[in-house]
């Protein structure tokens, strides 16, 4: 084993040209991911979390492209690979689970055909061995009577069962990293709990790392080791999941946590953050959160904060800069 982290994202920037201007969807994002670690990537619509996942797996759709930074898998850059080389990485070393299982399975092929094809593209096994492997995988993800159901078509499965099949597909080639983009958003809550359990169990058995992209802090709390909070394309805060949830540092994370209705709290009013996230063509100068922040001061409107260390976390907020002498009004 090398001493590189499994995945290292440095200063990643993704931009889209639009009417002569460049829109920045992912803005200078950096994080590392260790082997076997589950990193939650959380944020509201338009925060850039899915775009970060798409950049790692090399699926940014034109005209968008990576305009800065680097992505390395075990120390080797993967962001500048040719599309043929990237295909060797995608599926083999990095697996994917998307939000809607109906769109990520081909309706014209049976589950067996799709799984066997995936396995044989990436691993040197015979068709018979691949089929046995596929049945084993379906058993593992909890599909009852897998050896019969493997010859069914996707429409013959329920939503939860389809998402199990997608997880089996993602793990078919024993990847080192799985990117799960809103894997449970289309599912009911009782099915969601089951899918999270399956994903967590299978990845930890294989020591695969997971990037779990979601807007649901509850799912993160259940699953992740560390969490990265995104706002307007930037990382607001990144740290161990318990610290971030119990004791958020960034004012945005604080507001976000307060706005989640909880099963146990009895507070009458939810904390609300005024306004809404800026559009990409209208990101304020300085800290992107400053117009909505309740602790804003002069420096926030002029200078953009980068991630700075604070205890066991990194946070991009001037409140935690040692050189900040001003105090918020």
């Amino acid at each position, binding site marked *: 084993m090398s001493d590189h982290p499994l995945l290292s994202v440095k200063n990643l920037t993704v931009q889209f040209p639009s009417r002569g201007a460049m829109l920045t969807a992912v803005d200078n994002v950096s994080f590392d991911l260790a082997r076997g670690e589950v990193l939650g990537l959380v944020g*509201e*619509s338009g925060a850039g979390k899915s775009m970060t996942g798409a950049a790692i797996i090399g699926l940014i759709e034109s005209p968008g492209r990576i305009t800065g930074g680097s992505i390395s898998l075990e120390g080797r850059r993967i962001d500048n690979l040719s599309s043929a080389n990237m295909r060797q990485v995608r599926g083999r070393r990095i697996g994917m689970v998307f939000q809607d299982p109906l769109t990520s399975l081909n309706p014209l092929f049976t589950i067996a055909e799709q799984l066997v094809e995936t396995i044989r593209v990436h691993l040197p096994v015979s068709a018979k061995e691949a089929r046995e492997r596929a049945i084993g995988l379906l058993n593992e993800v909890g599909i009852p009577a897998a050896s019969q159901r493997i010859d069914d078509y996707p429409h013959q499965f*329920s939503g*939860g*069962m389809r998402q199990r099949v997608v997880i089996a597909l993602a793990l078919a080639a024993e990847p080192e990293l799985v990117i799960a983009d809103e894997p449970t958003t289309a599912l*009911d*809550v*009782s*099915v*969601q*709990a*089951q899918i*999270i*359990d399956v994903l967590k169990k299978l990845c930890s058995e294989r020591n695969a790392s997971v990037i779990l992209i979601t*807007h*649901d*802090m*509850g*799912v993160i*709390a*259940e699953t992740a080791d560390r969490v990265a909070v995104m706002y307007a394309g930037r990382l607001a805060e990144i740290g161990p999941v*318990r610290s971030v*949830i*119990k004791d958020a540092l960034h004012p945005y994370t604080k*507001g*976000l946590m*307060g*706005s*989640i*209705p*909880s*099963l*146990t*709290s009895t507070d*009458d*009013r*939810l*904390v*609300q*953050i*005024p306004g*809404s*996230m800026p559009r990409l063509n209208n990101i304020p100068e300085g800290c992107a959160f400053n117009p909505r922040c309740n602790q804003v001061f002069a420096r926030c409107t002029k200078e953009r904060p980068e991630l700075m260390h604070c205890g066991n976390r990194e946070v991009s907020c001037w409140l935690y800069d040692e050189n900040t002498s001003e105090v918020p009004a």
Partner: protein
Amino acid sequence: MSDTLLEVRDLTRTFDMSKPWLNRVLERDGKQFLRAVDHVSFTIRKGETFALVGESGSGKSTIAKMVVGLLPSSSGEILFDGAPIGTGAGSSMRAMRSRFQMIFQSPFASLNPRWKVRDIVAEPLIAFDMVQNRQAQAARVAELLELVGLTASDGSKYPHEFSGGQRQRIAIARALSSNPEFIVCDEPTSALDVSVQAQILNLMRDLQDELGLTYLFISHDLSVVRHMANRIGVLYLGALVENAQARGLFEDPQHPYTQMLLDAVPDVDMTNREREEVIGEIPNPISPPDGCVFHPRCVKAFDRCRVEAPVMVATQYGEARCFAAENVRKAGS
């Protein structure tokens, strides 16, 4: 406070899911019916929030549509302030219609994109002849927009100029324009981000305090329901399985399905509370299981549950449709 505003009695709705006549003849199939709502009864008192929770296909939205008269019922009664809803048009029905309104799930689909906001908000005013002239109409629209946290000048914009949360505010302003007493809210925040959801939920509670509104609040999200409701009805496959006072339902759920739903909610507070593993999925509603429809997924199921359908029994905080809850009750008394 204890006056009943809405009473729903034995409400049932079946949909005909049969194949076309020729297919039925050739394939020797009978007709197939889906019972989306199955003998549901509940009452809502003035000034309270009654929530219906359940997963997809549990019949929550079908009930909402029947309550406001958008969908006829197959059988059963809906009484609004003592008078039946949904039978014919007539002038008394028109007068009654102004007293209840609905807020829909997606503010992207529920606002006409070709209308200006002021026309959208004014439509109920015109439909119910509630304003005498243009000035009065403009003044009322401005007042409504400010009530929901927008400004009067927003009236001259189109819906696409607003974010999701602001659009839901417009939908709320429209619902309030006819001075209703009762609002049916069908998943009002499930299309919104969580920080915007907090704004809308707070607004709805403020409006309830200010205007004395009564809500029928429909949601799949138990933590949202916990925040909003006084009483909660839990639906499973079209039938009410538990109906109880909100606090009691969360502290001491009586029906195993309620317990399962609570256990399935992700633990965002990281309390490490003990939970049962969730098993199984909702069965096909066209051919529901015999006996109690929940028994294949139930951890407490015994022989009786497989053959006999339970009826509602009184519990400490309300009522539950479960033999296990009934036994607890008997053992306790």
